[in-house]
């Protein structure tokens, strides 16, 4: 069976991380987490609505899950660092997904600011998982900055477009000595399986579940796909050939050979 994923001394059995945004209702989230068998769950930090002070997503996340707050809303390293420190003060642990975005149309991350924030927060003892545009040099700098994993995007956030950056992610998997977690863009279980077969350490899925007609059922499908993809990767798929290579013996036919 698939090996557990090791991040910063934690051993994680489920390689399907999930986000909690955009679900029609928070009450479905515990069912989605259960169907996905997810152990790492992302949340966002926002101003409390002083008219509705009781709303809090953490109330819907089962105990035992690792909560990974993101720094969404941060437009530069400084803002990401502030959000990370606030998140830590909540007492929900020290995992942080760095997300620094200054582009409103494609929501593409700012790798340079992400590297800066990673360095500061890793030095403060955070387990830092930076969301990034898949670029080898930026990923190497994230390794040097103390990231615990690297999370390249498959396609822009919320697009459900799949692994548009596949070749660049493949290079990161080959060259970067940290877990590579495909975050953003994955829209279907087959795409999650594809990332896992390629050697991604995990995938992070949110919109694909939140916008499905049946989020709980698709969460289950994603869990199966991620597991299948991981087992396939560990099994070592056979080589791709240009020409046909018969699967049945080429001798003993029921005719005389010429």
């Amino acid at each position, binding site marked *: 069976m698939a090996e557990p994923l090791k991040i910063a001394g934690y051993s994680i059995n489920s390689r399907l991380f999930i986000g909690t945004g955009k679900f029609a209702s928070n009450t479905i989230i515990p069912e989605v987490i259960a169907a996905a068998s997810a152990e790492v769950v992302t949340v966002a930090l926002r101003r409390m609505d002083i008219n509705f002070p009781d709303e809090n997503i*953490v109330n819907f996340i089962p105990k035992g899950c690792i909560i990974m707050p993101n720094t969404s809303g941060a437009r530069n390293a400084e803002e990401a660092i502030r959000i990370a420190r606030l998140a830590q003060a*909540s007492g929900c642990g020290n995992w942080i997904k760095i997300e620094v975005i200054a582009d409103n149309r494609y929501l593409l991350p700012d790798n340079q600011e992400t590297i800066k924030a990673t360095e500061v927060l890793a030095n403060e003892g955070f387990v830092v998982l930076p969301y990034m545009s898949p670029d080898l040099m930026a990923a190497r700098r994230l390794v040097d900055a103390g990231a615990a994993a690297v999370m390249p995007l498959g396609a822009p956030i919320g697009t459900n477009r799949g692994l548009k950056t596949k070749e660049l992610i493949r290079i990161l998997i080959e060259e970067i000595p940290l877990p590579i977690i495909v975050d953003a863009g994955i829209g279907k279980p087959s795409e999650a399986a594809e990332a896992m077969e390629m050697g991604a350490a995990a995938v992070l899925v949110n919109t694909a579940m939140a916008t499905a007609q049946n989020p709980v059922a698709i969460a289950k499908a994603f869990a199966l796909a991620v597991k299948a993809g991981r087992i396939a990767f560990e099994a070592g798929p056979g080589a791709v050939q240009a020409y046909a290579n018969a699967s049945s013996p080429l001798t003993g036919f029921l005719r005389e050979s010429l």
Partner: protein
Amino acid sequence: MQVTVNGQLVQATSEISLAELVKEKGWQAERIVVELNDVIISRTDWVHCIMKQGDKLEVVTFVGGG
């Protein structure tokens, strides 16, 4: 006395501690983080923190996100 909470003016009892303010307003103490004048105040320090007229509070909490 008035303090600013998340950009809105809020009425509060004079000389109230942050812990008392949180209780008075019915905020979920175990689920929020508070910055007072840009400094994070840890939950254990709320009782010692006496609010002053014009103080600026940011009260944050977790919401769904990816």
